[in-house]
Structure formats: C-alpha cells, structure tokens
C-alpha cells in the first residue's frame, strides 16, 4: 500500500515538469467548477422545466414568446420600497392567466389580487429573501437571512403594513386589530402606529376605587382565581394566582376601597307593593333591551346577547343589591364615563330589575370560598402583588400609579430578529410560531413570566398573530405617501344642554355622529335632514322598530317632555347635510298622476316590494324598513336624494344604487310621501 502510494507520488510529482503539469491541471479543473455551477444552477433548471411544461400546450406559441422576452434572471426592482425580487426567475408563469389548470409549483399562476406584481413585487406580501436565486435562500431562514416566507394563513398581515384602515378583504387582520384593543393587550404592551399615534384599548376595565361598595371580597377572590368560571366571555385573563395570593390581593382591594356617596341605595319598601309578578322582571329586562349590550349564557351553554357591557349570567353573585339599585337608577354616579345609558327608571322598576338580576346567581361559585378577616400583613402583601402583576395597567386602583410600559413594546414585533427570541425546545424557529405560542400559553415560556393566560379560540389566536405580524419595520419605514391611512378617530362632542343629555343617555354607545360612536344603530350625522320633527318627537317618547325582521330596537328611556324637546331641537337644527335643503320639496300635495306613476315604478320597474312593505296585506319584503308611514317619517328631499344615491347619504347603506333618472326619483318620492300611515299605530309599536 505504502509502496503504491509512493510510486504514484513519484509518477505525478517526481519530476518538476510533471509536477508543474499536474498542479496546473488540478487548478484548471477547480477553476472550471465555478462556471459549471453557474450553468447548472437551480433557476436554469426550473426555466427548462417550464419550457417543457408549456411545450405541449395549445397556447405554447404565446407562452414561449412571453418567456423568451424575459429569460435569464428576472427581477422586479422597486427602489422606493427597497424591493429587489427575483422570484419571477423561477415562478415564471405567475402572470399567465391561461395556466389556471397548472398546480405544480413554481409554475402556478398567481391568484387574482387587487395589486399588480410589477408595482408591488413579491416580498412585500410574502416576505422571504427577494434577491435570492436559490430555493433554500429565497424561502427559508438561513445564516445570513432571518425572515423566511410568511405562512399563507398569516398573509393578511402584509396588507396591514400599508392599509391602516379595515379592508373588506382582510377579515382576519381586522379581527386581530380589534382584539388587540378589545382584550386590552395595549394596556400593558404599547403599540405605536406609524402615524405616531398608539392603539387605544376599548375594553374599558372598571375602576377599583370603590370596589367594596359594589362587590364582596369572596367574589373578588373567586374572580381572581378564574374569571372565566364567573363569566365565560370575561375579558379579564387568568393570572394563575395561588390561593394565598388571591386571598391577599382581595384583602388589599377591599381595604383600599373608599366609599362613594350615592353609589348604594337601600331597599325601598313600598307599603302597598304587591308581590311582583314573576315574569315582570324578565319582561322589563327584555323591554329595556338590556340584551342589546349584555349577554347571558342560557341553559344550553350558548351566550346570547350583545358584548358592549359585561355578561350578566351570574351577576347576582357578584354585585351587592344596594349597589345595583343605585347603578340602575343612575350609572353615571359610580362611573361617569360608562357606556351604559341613564335609563329614567321608576323606583318600582329599579326594584323589579334588581330582584330579577339578583336571581341570576350561582351559589357554587362562592361555595368553597372561606376567607378569614384580613391581617395587615396580608393587605401589604396584596399591595405588593398588585404592583408586581401590573393590575394598575388596566384598572384604576387608589394609591397605585399606572405603570408605564409594563410589558415589552410591540410596535415592531413583526420584524423582531430571531436572534433576540428565546424559543421553546422543539418549536419552529419563526416569528409567527413564537407569537402564536406566546398568545396561546404565555407561561409556557417560563413560570415566572407575568403575562396571564387568555381564553382565545384558535381563530382568535391566528387573527391576533396576523395583526401583530403586520407591525414590521417596513410598515414603519414606508413613506407616508405609499400608505393608506385610517380614518382619524373623532372626538366629536355635541355642545350645550343637548350634549350633556346625549352623554347621559350614552347615545354614542350605539349611534355614530360625525365619525364618533358605535355601529349598533343608524348613523345620525344627517338625521335632521332626514326625518320630520313630529315623528322624531314621537319616536323619542316611544321608540319602535322600523324593520319587520328586527326585534331589537332603541330602548325606552322614559324621557321627560322637556328633554325630548331639547333633543329634537338640537337634532333638527344641527344634524343637517350640506348637500340639500330639507324643505326644498313639499311633504304633501303631489299630483295623483305622479303618485300613480310612482306606484308603477315601485311595484314593477324597481320592484321595491322585494325588500320593503307598503301594503302590509300584500307585500312581503322584510330586508329594508317598513314604508307604511314613510311619508310622515322622512322628508321628501331626503327620499329623493336617497333614491338617487343611497351610499352618498349614508356610506355602506345596503340599498342598491339604481341610477334613477330625475323623473323616476320624483315620481317615487311623490308616491312614498303619500304613505302617511297613522301616527297612532306607530306610537303603539
């Protein structure tokens, strides 16, 4: 063996000339490797495959022509966005509409999207490494590139980098953004938006200044241990507190609470009060439309009702009756900024509702809670815990300052370098995997972590991950001209006495005016141009529903005459559209020929009866409002302009724009204005 080796060495390198030749040959071979690697590169291989694929198709000629106009390495270069995408080098058929039947990658055509590839490139939405020309480098994270391809189920997050406002095509992103505010994530984690503002929480956690007036220590203990055991929809997360910690925090909160004048009311005993009708409470609860905002879990376990206010399934276990009585009488005493309207309930009504809600109790919840009187040490320890867990980030607590930046800022979480993330063993090393795992089980990253356990459905976790992944460096560094900003939030506040009244009635909880308010009820920005004064007065006195398919309606607030006049005056005077004069068309006296023409148009040409009802005996339409009394409800000018372009009057209206000519719109207006109905019937409803 040794001899063979040494003789080989002798043959190759024995003589200087031969040695020189051998070394030169080795050098040449090694130099030839580089161009050879270049020639047999992955992208050339894919382009050859593509040519073979299109070669035997009917439209081979066109496709080949398209290809040969752009063979070699392709790139989409967008200097303004910092994009150099060479993905189209291998994904050759992205723009070929005729490749709809091809399902093998990388030759599939791109699904239809609202943007063109040439203007946006690929990595703007899909991430990954655009300049790369190898499969591994382009798609995955490597030693010199951290950002791998974004999994398709989070792709909506990329829309959110430029689009700050909700889009109809991105429900997951919209939900996620909503959840960030709704579940109060942003109380602890600051999220600054590229325009400089920050996401504001919308969960409105209650102040704990006067908690002892409202609730018992036992309930607080049970709630702290497991909020979802009390209410399945509770926003408050589970801090996984030990029994002793929950005991001490409840001790501190009760000891720290100060009494507030007027937030409790003793039971009033009416001398001649009869035993209340057992169904009266339920019917008052229903008639006041409490369920528009509050949910209750029924026997089948379904949560029924709105999510504006807290769930009331076990409210009798939570609140003290004397507090509930005062709250129902006027919630603004305890919480001046509550979303709850100030119902003008009479004392018997308050008693009835208090009794009804008090029965919504669950004795099991507190059955095992036995707390001895708190010691000063326990209270002090409770205070320490409250500070440590950052309770004051969400709740106002007397004597404890709201901490700033209690949790890490998430402004650029979508671009967090992987090297700064500590992954769990066995976990996929990617930002989406980390974020979703952190939301799903925060404490799995360390028992000492403070982030509490939330109760999210998988779809909610995906939505939150999507919303967080949208917070990238790119989103922040894009020139403002390339972003689609959100509608700036409005701080609209109506003035004067009417303004105070509207705040007291919490109109904005359901109605939007001038860009501020909820979407539970119609937008009232131009209500003054829309309705007739007598109808509005009657409606405020006794609200009815306008739509036959809708059971919910505005609750009856028992407003006084002067309050109704105040509100009506304000609405009629202030909420007018600049587009037209509401008195520019008469409310009656239309020629019968024109009315008849309108009837024809209504029933035949435009077939309005498919959605609306004019004659309750014949018409079956139930999508739109009933129009039996429309002539006494709306102004003629409003109807006319509405018919011409409904969306111009109220953006998002579902009534289709029929491009009516002036004559048809006039005739229909005349016909509709004749539908006066009877005010009596309206009032009865």
């Amino acid at each position, binding site marked *: 063996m040794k001899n063979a080796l040494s003789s080989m060495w002798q043959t190759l390198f024995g003589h200087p000339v031969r040695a020189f030749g051998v070394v030169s040959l080795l050098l040449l071979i090694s130099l030839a490797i*580089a161009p050879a690697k270049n020639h047999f590169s992955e992208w050339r291989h894919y382009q050859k495959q593509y040519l073979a694929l299109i070669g035997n198709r009917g439209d081979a000629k066109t496709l080949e022509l398209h290809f040969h106009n752009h063979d070699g390495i392709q790139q989409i270069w967008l200097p303004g966005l910092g994009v150099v995408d060479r993905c189209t080098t291998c994904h050759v058929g992205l723009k070929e509409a005729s490749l709809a039947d091809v399902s093998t990658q990388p030759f599939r055509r791109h699904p239809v999207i609202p943007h063109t590839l040439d203007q946006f490139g690929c990595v703007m939405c899909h991430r990954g490494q655009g*300049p790369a020309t190898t499969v591994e480098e382009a798609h995955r994270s490597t030693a010199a590139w951290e950002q791998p391809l974004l999994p398709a189920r989070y792709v909506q997050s990329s829309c959110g980098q430029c689009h700050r406002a909700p889009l109809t095509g991105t429900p997951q992103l919209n939900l996620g953004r909503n959840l960030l505010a709704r579940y109060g994530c942003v109380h602890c984690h600051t999220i600054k938006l590229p325009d400089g503002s920050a996401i504001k929480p919308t969960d409105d956690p209650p102040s704990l200044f006067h908690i002892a007036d409202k609730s018992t220590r036992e309930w607080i203990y049970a709630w702290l241990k497991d909020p979802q055991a009390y209410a399945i929809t509770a926003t408050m997360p589970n801090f996984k507190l030990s029994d002793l910690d929950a005991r001490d925090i409840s001790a501190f909160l009760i000891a720290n609470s100060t009494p507030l004048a007027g937030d409790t009311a003793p039971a009033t005993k009416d001398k001649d009060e009869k035993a209340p009708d057992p169904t009266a409470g339920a019917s008052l609860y229903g008639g006041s439309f409490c369920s528009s905002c509050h949910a209750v879990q029924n026997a089948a376990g379904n949560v029924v009702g709105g999510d504006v206010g807290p769930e009331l399934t076990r409210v009798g276990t939570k609140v003290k009756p004397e507090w509930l009585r005062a709250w129902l009488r006027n919630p603004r005493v305890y919480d001046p900024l509550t979303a709850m309207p100030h119902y003008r309930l009479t004392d018997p009504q308050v008693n009835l509702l208090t009794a009804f809600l008090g029965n919504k109790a669950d004795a099991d919840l507190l059955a095992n809670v036995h707390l001895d009187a708190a010691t000063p040490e326990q209270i002090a320890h409770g205070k320490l815990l409250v500070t440590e867990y950052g309770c004051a980030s969400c709740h106002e607590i007397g004597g404890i300052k709201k901490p700033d930046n209690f949790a890490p800022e998430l402004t650029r979480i979508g671009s967090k370098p992987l090297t700064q993330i500590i992954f769990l063993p066995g976990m996929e090393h990617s930002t989406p995997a980390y974020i979703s795992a952190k939301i799903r089980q925060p404490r799995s990253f360390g028992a000492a972590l403070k982030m509490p356990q939330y109760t999210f459905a998988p779809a909610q976790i995906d939505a939150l991950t999507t919303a967080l992944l949208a917070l990238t460096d790119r989103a922040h560094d894009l020139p403002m001209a390339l972003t689609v900003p959100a509608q700036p939030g409005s701080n609209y506040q109506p003035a004067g006495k009417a303004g105070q009244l509207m705040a007291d009635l919490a109109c904005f909880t359901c109605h939007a005016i001038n860009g501020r308010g909820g979407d539970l009820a119609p937008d009232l920005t131009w209500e003054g141009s829309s309705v007739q004064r007598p109808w509005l007065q009657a409606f405020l006195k006794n609200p009815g529903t306008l739509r036959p398919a809708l059971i919910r309606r505005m609750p009856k607030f028992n407003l006084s005459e002067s309050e109704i006049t105040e509100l009506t005056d304000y609405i009629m005077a202030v909420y007018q559209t600049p587009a037209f004069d509401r008195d520019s068309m008469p409310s009656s006296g239309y020629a019968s020929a024109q009315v008849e023409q309108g009837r024809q148009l209504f029933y035949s040409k435009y077939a309005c009866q498919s959605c609306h009802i004019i004659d309750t005996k014949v018409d079956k339409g139930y999508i739109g409002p009933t129009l039996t009394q429309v002539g006494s409800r709306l102004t003629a000018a409003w109807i006319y302009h509405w018919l011409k372009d409904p969306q111009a009057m109220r953006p998002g209206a579902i009534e289709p724009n029929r491009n009516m000519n002036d004559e048809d719109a006039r005739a229909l207006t005349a016909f509709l204005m004749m539908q006066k109905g009877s005010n009596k019937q309206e009032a009865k409803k």
Partner: protein
Amino acid sequence: MAKTIASYFDELRGTRVWRSVFRSGTGSSTLHRALAVQQNVFLHLFSTKVRTRMLSFSTTWYLGTLTFGTFLLLVVTGIPLMFYYHPSVPQAYADTKDLEFVVSSGLFLRNLHRWSAHAMVFLVFAHMFKVFYRGAYRPPREFNWVIGVILLLITLLLSYTGYLLPWDQLAFWAITVGSNIASAVPVMGNKVHFLMLGGNVVNANALLRFYVLHCMILPLVAILFVAVHFWRIRKDGGLYSHQSEPQTVTAGPVPAAAKGGQFQ
C-alpha cells in the same frame, strides 16, 4: 527536423523587438544569466545566484512565496470585486448578496478572496514562526525581521478592514468591538476611536474609510514593504541557512567577507 523548438526560441531572442525589451542579450554564460536577473526591474530585487539547496522545500517550506502568492491572488480577485461593490450603507449588503445570487461566478470570486485572506494570515504567521525558530531573524537580518513585523501588521489591518465591507451583522459588531478596544488606549483612546470610524459609531463614514484603506492605502503600503522585504533578502546575504551563519559573534567592525554579501 532541421529546426528544434529551442532554435525557434533562439531566433525569437535574436529579433530586434526582443532585444529592445530584454537588454541582457542571449547566451547561457554565467554573465548573461546574471544580467538577465540584474537588469529586470522585478527580478533585480532577488539574488542573481542562489544555491540549489536553498530552493529545496525543507529549507523554507516556501512559506514566504506562498504568502506572496495569496497576496497576488487577493489583488487579482479584489479588483473584479470592486467592480460590483458600492461602499454605501444601503447598497453594500445588497451588493454582497448580488455577488452570490446574480453575478456570474460571483460567489466563487468572493469565496476565493475570503479564503485567500484567511490563508494569507495563517501563512504570514507560519512564515514568522519558521523564521523565528530557525533563528533567521538574527543579524544581519534583524531589520528585515522588523519589516516582516510591519508586513504582519499590514496583513492584519487588511484583514480587519475587509471584514467590515460585507456590511452584515458579523461585520458590524466585529468592527464595533474592535474599535471599542482602540478606545481603551489611555489618554487619546477616544480620539483614535473617532479617527478610525470617522464618527462615534460604525456607520457610513466608517464604511467608506475602511473601503479606501482596504482597497488603496493598505495594498500600496504592503507592496512597498514587500519590495523592501525582498530586496533586503538579497542585501542581507540571501536566504538563511545554518552554513551561512557566522560561528562567532565578534564585537567591533565585521570584515566585509564575513557579511556573506557576495552579491551586493
């Protein structure tokens, strides 16, 4: 076959053009061969005569020649790399990526440059160990040892400045750490740090500064010192071997013959 290949070469050497370029004339006499070396601007740095024993592998392991070879390779690969590279913050890293992804054989070019650089640092150290342990630094070669130390520093500086140019995380933090070490110098540390980076942090100025140092100043200085280094080999008596070592170190003036400088 009246004419051999050798006779064609002889004819070529006799032409006027050849003679205008190589003035030493033709012939294989000792004088002609000595003139061929002495009258060539590149070769005249070297001795006109060496002992065959000095050219054997075991004498030097060819470490100095190999070092010079890697240096040439670095110059040859470095120049085309300069064609593709912009020393600017937004472009530098993208250019490095482009070399990998779109420039024909760009990755080969860059890898050749990088590995040659590593090899050069290794070879310089090996060369110095060999010289040190064989005692070849001793008089009369002590000045050439000093030049060798300067060349070591230049090599390290070339390596260090080149490290920043890809403008990746590794580069950025390596230079940040390195420059912070410089700021630990007493009294003038912060000034040195500022001078090095052209600012207080590693940024566009540092990149430009390092680029100019790496591609122009340091290579030129290196070439200058390499020339002196080679020239001093001849002046100090050719390559070192035990036999050329004076047996005794004498105090006072050394006789000219003992200097071993026959070929000055």
